[in-house]
């Protein structure tokens, strides 16, 4: 029974990590190709912030600090929403956060398609929105999975993957379910991120900002799928509760 629960939990984590990492890869590459900056390279931004402070570039300091701050804010907002809802209403928390993410990305896509004049101010605001949405996503996946899944934190994922692969060289770890599960999770996250990045990179040169519309549509499908699954769980629970009386 416990194994069944563990397997179901792993399956959910793999699905969550894989799909959201794919979208994160798409968004990150779109940001790079459109604006020449990344939308989730926070480690890099800390380094850049340090370099800009050393060089005394006031404008760049303000911009990079704001981007980091907005990523943090996105994660903060996601965690607030997830923690507000109790375990049974996890799907509502997921839905709310993904809806906000869709709105942010849709706004960027819409503006990019119709109004973007490539001024620096527009670039900074649009990138800020994308960073906020990535913070939301990373915060949500991290909170929902109790810090097991982080979809835009590839530095940590790659580090942990290296550690786990080294652990698997020992026989005792090869029989350890949690080590194997974690390795699978991180591997799927990295591969999915890369696939999303490649897809976006190929498609962006053909359709530009419309890539973000595709991202929003795919996120929406994920939402629908999760709601259908959630409805079945609620229905099953209701039937289970009601069965003595039927």
């Amino acid at each position: 029974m416990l194994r069944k629960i563990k397997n179901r939990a792993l399956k959910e984590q793999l699905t969550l990590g894989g799909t959201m990492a794919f979208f994160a890869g798409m968004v990150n590459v779109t940001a790079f190709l459109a604006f020449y900056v990344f939308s989730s390279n926070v480690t890099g931004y800390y380094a850049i912030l340090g370099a800009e402070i050393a060089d005394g570039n006031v404008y760049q300091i303000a911009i990079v600090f704001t981007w980091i701050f907005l990523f943090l804010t996105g994660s903060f907002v996601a965690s607030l929403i997830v923690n507000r809802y109790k375990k049974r209403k996890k799907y509502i928390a997921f839905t709310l956060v993904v809806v906000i993410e869709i709105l942010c990305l849709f706004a960027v896509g819409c503006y990019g398609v119709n109004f973007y004049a490539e001024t620096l101010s527009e670039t900074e605001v649009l990138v800020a929105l994308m960073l906020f949405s990535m913070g939301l996503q990373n915060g949500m996946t991290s909170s929902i999975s109790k810090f097991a899944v982080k979809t835009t934190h590839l530095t940590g994922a790659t580090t942990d993957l290296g550690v786990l692969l080294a652990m698997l060289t020992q026989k005792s770890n090869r029989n350890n379910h949690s080590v194997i599960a974690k390795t699978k999770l991180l591997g799927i996250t990295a591969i999915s991120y890369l696939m999303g990045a490649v897809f976006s990179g190929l498609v962006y040169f053909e359709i530009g900002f419309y890539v973000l519309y595709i991202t929003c549509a795919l996120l929406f499908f994920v939402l629908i799928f999760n709601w259908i699954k959630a409805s079945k769980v609620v229905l099953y629970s209701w039937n289970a509760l009601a069965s003595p009386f039927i």
Partner: protein
Amino acid sequence: MRLGLFYIVVLSLSLFACYRVVHSNYNPERLVLGEWDELVWAYDKVNSKDSNVAKYKTITDEVKNNIGENLIIHESEHWQFLPDGTLLLRGKDKITHAKWIIKGRGHVLQIKHDDKRIENYNIVHISKHNLVLNFEWDLEIRGIAQLSFNRK
């Protein structure tokens, strides 16, 4: 409740501070406007085992022509950035028109030409009086050329 208010105040102040900086004279889009005279081409990094690296510091005209062969800017000593996004490149005998855009966090100068060619330069330093650009910004490329300009 008080903590929530504190968070909101911190967020608002941070965003307001950023807004002020973006719309101040530190903005590279404002700083770059006007006329610039090319001062010197130099190597930012020299890929040479020669101990006397200083002799490579300044790029000769011949090397400059080789580097800038495919770059539209290599024959233009005077640059004029106009507010409407037009860039006038004045050489000895001709004036070339292009479009300029600043991208990224204000560290990339992109020049678009009429023939759809795009050139990207890393803005190393920009102030009221000086502008320093690097060709590309890939740290693995050694022998990167650096263009320095003075305000006219």
